[in-house]
């Protein structure tokens, strides 16, 4: 009774490990089960497939390198979408913002390749961030001042970005003595250092931008939960009336959040252009922007969650291609199916098992408190 009174009105907290480890794990297992069935149907061995997937994602140094390289992009776009969510905005435009970020990086690397790397690095970051932010600014401004629905405007800006990039790569930046819509390669002096240049590991596209991603994640956490600016963004996102009551300007924060979002998305350009392709190319954003939405939501808009979700996606991308590579009957489509199923189960159906698990946990906890009291 006494115990009851203390607890009254205050829900018994379900500990983190249940919420953030046990339940997601069970969801993942469920997803893999269904995927296994799919693979069975197309007449292959699910166990082997799973093994190949895991091995392909983490089994050997290259694999890890590639996985982390993909993860990097997902962290950037995941954080981008998440900060917008914290401000109550749904940014579908990460794709276009990433493309513009890449453009910024490309322009720096193409035009200042005389400069030493230690100047190029910050310049490229600045360019990626500012180009991405600029591309996000217009939809943000329209949302804040004119109430134009940001979901539409950002979708439209993805298309516009694609057109712009194609135009630039076909008409303006195209390599004069090349034939495909690509810029000339950027000078090696401007390349982002690879991990395999620094550590002793096999050649992979994994590069310095992975560290950027980790640092930005930390920064994100600090900004959102430990600064007054993050506080304001969250207030606006949760309750605009309360914001007005507290004298917090919605439009200012909407624009701020979206520009940060665009800047984060822009960093994909650093990883892809300065880090890997070393020239401006078409569609280097390859859907990372859209996947970022799922990453952010599955990561509950928290950097740690986002990192885990990003890692999951990275593993799926890398392990997936390994799967397509190693198993003849498995082609790129089936890999996509598996990825979709995992998003479905660990994202959309995440609550399917939760009530049962929590109830079970509570029963145990109750039993304990009764013994105690």
């Amino acid at each position, binding site marked *: 009774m006494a115990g009851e009174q203390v607890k009254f009105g205050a829900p018994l907290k379900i500990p983190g490990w249940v919420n953030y480890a046990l339940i997601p794990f069970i969801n993942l297992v469920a997803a893999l089960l269904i995927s296994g069935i799919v693979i069975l149907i197309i007449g292959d061995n699910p166990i082997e497939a799973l093994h190949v997937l895991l091995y392909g994602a983490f089994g050997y140094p290259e694999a890890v390198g590639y996985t982390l390289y993909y993860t990097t992009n997902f962290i950037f776009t995941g954080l981008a979408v998440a900060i917008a969510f914290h401000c109550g905005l749904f940014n579908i435009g990460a794709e276009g913002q990433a493309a513009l970020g890449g453009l910024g990086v490309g322009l720096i690397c193409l035009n200042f390749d005389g400069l030493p790397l230690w100047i190029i690095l910050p310049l490229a970051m600045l360019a990626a961030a500012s180009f991405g932010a600029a591309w996000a600014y217009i939809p943000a401004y329209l949302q804040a001042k004119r109430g134009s629905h940001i979901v539409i405007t950002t979708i439209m800006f993805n298309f516009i970005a*694609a057109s712009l990039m*194609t135009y630039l790569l076909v008409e303006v930046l195209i390599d004069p003595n090349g034939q*495909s819509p690509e810029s000339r*390669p950027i000078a090696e002096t401007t390349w982002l250092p690879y991990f395999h240049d620094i550590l002793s590991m096999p050649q992979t596209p994994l590069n310095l931008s992975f560290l950027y991603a980790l640092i930005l994640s930390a920064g994100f956490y600090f900004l959102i939960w430990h600064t007054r600016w993050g506080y304001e963004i969250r207030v606006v996102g949760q309750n605009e009336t309360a914001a007005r009551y507290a004298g917090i300007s919605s439009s200012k924060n909407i624009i701020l959040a979206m520009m940060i979002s665009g800047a984060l998305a822009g960093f994909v350009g650093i990883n892809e252009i300065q880090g890997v392709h070393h020239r401006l190319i078409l569609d280097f954003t*390859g859907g990372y922007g859209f996947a970022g939405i799922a990453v952010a939501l599955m990561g509950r808009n928290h950097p740690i969650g986002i990192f885990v979700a990003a890692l999951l996606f990275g593993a799926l991308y890398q392990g997936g291609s390994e799967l397509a590579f190693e198993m003849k009957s498995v082609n790129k489509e089936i890999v996509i199916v598996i990825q979709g199923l995992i998003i479905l189960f660990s994202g959309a159906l995440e609550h399917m098992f939760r009530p049962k698990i929590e109830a079970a946990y509570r029963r145990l906890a109750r039993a304990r408190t009764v013994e105690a009291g």
Partner: protein
Amino acid sequence: EDFKPAIVFDMGGKSDKSFNEAAFNGVEEFKKDTGIDYLEYEVTKVSEREQATERMARKGADIVVAIGFAQAAAVEKAAKAHPDTKFTIIDMVVDLPNVQSVVFREEQGSFLVGIAAAMASKTGKVGFIGGMDIPLIRKFALGYKEGVLYANPNAEVIENMTGTTPAAWNDPTKGSELAKSQFDRGADVIFAAAGGTGMGVLQSAADENKLAIGVDSNQDHLHPGTMLTSMLKRVDVAVYNAMMSAKDGTWKPGVQVLGLKEDGVGFSVDQWNKGVLTEDMIEAMNKAKADIIADKIKVTNYMDK
């Protein structure tokens, strides 16, 4: 003996009914004749290109055939990393000692089908529908245009590009709309160089009972009766030869330019377009072909402009 060939298809996938599929037919042919199986991979993401070629090399493939200009950078990297693996890239030039670059004179083939189009057109207006506005497609367009004007100096060519995102190569409905709008504007023959989008073009030609020209593979069988012809780009032959020569040791690095002379490009004459493609069209095309080979006709290569 253990000869291991490998092939890397590009985004469209090995069954895109045109470019990659042609390559696929090539390896299948090779497999049939030699009984040698091959490693294959379909690229789905930009970043996979490098990974794929690199992997093939590391798996000990004797020759890696990369399909499509977009793979150049990847091949360059892999070739540098694996100097004693043979690489063949289609549609692009990579200048390395262990790389064989196969490029086609699409403009020549396009020129010929342009002639056919001009001759088949009653309205004096013909159309061109490309996937994305990129140099390779412009190469097709330019050759086609020159061919049309060669056969009918005051003919008009209506030109459309589908889009700017990768979806542009996979949007048959958009394709058929573009075709319809060109028909509305008076065109009665359309040449489609737009991958899957082309399906829509050929379809609405069939619907409106106008004429269409296929690309890369022979697409005449899709709509017998309304297919004027297909501009063949013998990627299959190129792939087949690359693998064969590698097998019997006659493989040579350097640039291979496959034009009309080499039968690398051409046009289709078969049971499906019999009657549609008339004798005198075929005659005119063959004559032009001879003239081009004999350098009597200069067809501009967009890339050289």
